[in-house]
């Protein structure tokens, strides 16, 4: 059995693989099977809408060209495109999206990540991340203004002198005050991260951003 073809093929090859898949993959799937997976439309909330409208006011011409009116539907579209760019540009290789309960991370970033935060289509595949060159982004929404993000994406070293982050001038039509559709989408996505939390945010006390208006 241990040296025969059928033993290797069926026990080691298929059997042990399936055993591990059951234990490591199917068990969590079954545990979470009753959770509702939210769509991009369902995860649009007041806070991200406030940021979306803020983008429309700050960059009226660019926004008009890119998304027209700042409706919830347009916001969902921006979130989808933003997430696609976040993955495609490799952001997730330097920025994680989960706050661990150790190493003072909840003091630096915010509340420890919970499972239900990941039950939406924008976490397909889940963007936990494996490396932090830059900080965790799962509590980034609302921490900084859209103008900061625009300048930062265009040339990070302008606002964060020693940052090793690459530049993304292709999110803009020439200058940081002219974000294109990709730029607005990616900023909307970043401002969405963490906006679903009850306690939010720690950094700015703006009533509008808190979603209280």
């Amino acid at each position, binding site marked *: 059995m241990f040296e025969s073809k059928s033993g290797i093929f069926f026990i080691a090859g298929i059997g042990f*693989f399936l055993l591990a898949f059951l234990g490591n993959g199917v068990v969590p799937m079954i545990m979470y099977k009753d959770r509702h997976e939210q769509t991009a439309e369902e995860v649009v909330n007041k806070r991200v809408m406030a940021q979306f409208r803020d983008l429309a006011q700050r960059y009226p011409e660019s926004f008009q060209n890119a998304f027209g009116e700042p409706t919830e539907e347009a916001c969902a*579209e921006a979130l989808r*495109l933003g997430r696609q760019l976040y*993955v495609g540009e*490799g952001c997730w290789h330097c920025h994680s999206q989960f706050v661990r309960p150790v190493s*003072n991370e909840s003091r630096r970033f915010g509340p420890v*990540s919970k499972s239900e935060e990941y039950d939406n289509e924008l*976490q*397909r595949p889940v963007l936990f991340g494996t490396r932090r060159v830059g*900080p965790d982004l799962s509590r980034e929404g609302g921490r900084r203004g859209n103008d900061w993000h625009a300048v930062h994406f265009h040339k990070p070293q302008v606002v964060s002198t020693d940052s090793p982050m690459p530049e993304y001038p292709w999110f803009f039509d020439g200058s940081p005050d002219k974000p294109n559709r990709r730029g607005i989408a990616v900023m909307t996505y970043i401002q969405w991260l963490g906006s679903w939390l009850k306690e939010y945010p720690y950094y700015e006390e703006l009533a509008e951003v808190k979603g209280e208006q």
Partner: protein
Amino acid sequence: MTRGASAHHRSDGPQAGDAGAPSHDDLVDEKIIVCYYVAALTFLTISMLAGLLVALQLVHWNPFKGTELLSPGRWRMIHTNAIAYGFLANAFLGTLHWAVPRLTFHKVFSKPLSWFIFGAWQVVVLSTAFGIVLGPTFQDQPWILALAKKWHLPMNLGAQGLEWGETPFWIDPVALVGLALVAVNFMVPIGKSKGPMYVSLWYFMAAFVWTFLTYAMGNLLPEYAVAGTSAGAIGGLFIHDLVGLFVTPLGWGLMYYFVPIILKKPIWSHGLSLVGFWGLAFFYPLQGIHHFLYTPIPMFLQYGAVISTIAVELVVATVVINFFGTLVGRGKEFFDNLPIRYFYTGMVFYFITCFQCALQVTFTFQKLIHFTDWVVGHAHLVMFGVFSLWLFGIMTYLFPRLLGRPWWSRSLCEYHYWLSAGGLFVMFLDLTLAGIFQGYYWSSLQPWDASTNGSQPFWITRVFAGLAMFAGLLCFLVNLWMTARGAEATDPLPARAAGTPTA
């Protein structure tokens, strides 16, 4: 064992005792091996240049700042994917075309199929590269966004959001068909062979099954079937299995094949071979979740993954012991015989990797080193220090046989070894240290910049360590070019040092 052993005697062509056995020329298609190796080395060169670009970005020396198609974020994925699918997969496939027919005494299933797979695989690798580099540029298409909205799927034209599963979704089906055909092409000769199989064939056979299943699981489920935490568990399983169930068994299978041939003596202990294989097969797949400790994945699964990881390190130790037991009495070969030196250096690195893994997988270590360069150092140690060195050793052994003449320059062979192994070891120590520093910068709540500024000395060292490894590759390529075109050798590598079996 006997069949395997008799195959070993054939390592330098048909011998008197093998009357009636098919000749090497009937069994092995040498041309396809050369083609696979050329493809592998091409992608290795691209991958190392991509790694260099990212390393330069981190130390603020990127000469192509703001160039969309040379964005370090995209080329970081080229770096890892070109190593896994461009270099390792091609080099393994090429070597299997040598090892499997010689071990089984049967040709691969179909020669045209072999060439079809070769072509299809290059298409897969190149499309992956183009998809990753160009995908985000063309992502903003109404039709693809409409599909994403309709099906609630990611629909990334570029990379998918899973490490090593970045292969864009539109290539996945082709890659899967390719992997299935690879399995058929090599399983047929294995199936035709009679009697108990030699160790290498256990590993190969299992690897063909595992690679297909792993690729399907990782590229399809988190994309189409599950989201969130469950997808994280599967993602962890995928990145883990790709190393453990595709690269590792093929690598060890080839070690079990080449080491006894070159040393001309059997593996020390058949029992330990059994323990090593079955231990790997059982424990390795159980550990995927250890990549995501302290996540919202249920804690009991995290504990299970940690325990089975520590278990597999004991198993791995038996394999390493087995190979060093084989070397006992022939230790001089380590110094004189270049392929053997590559193999055993890789095994030392393998042991370090696994020992390190048994420590770093614990929750105590994870607090500090998760998300840091420690992990990057670990990844380089295993992918370059172990498997790439093994493949360099195999290529050093096979190229003179495939090309029919000795290596053009002995010193270039030596430079290749020392720059690769030395550069890698410096990079490993450097990144491991950097990881510890980064971990403490973060947990002590200093401003984020403290960690990136404090990493600069390490990152600069890493650039130069990487350049040394790249210089080693250039030595190899120059040597290969001069050997292939038949330049007159003033300082050839003697056959003895290129691994010709000794009595």
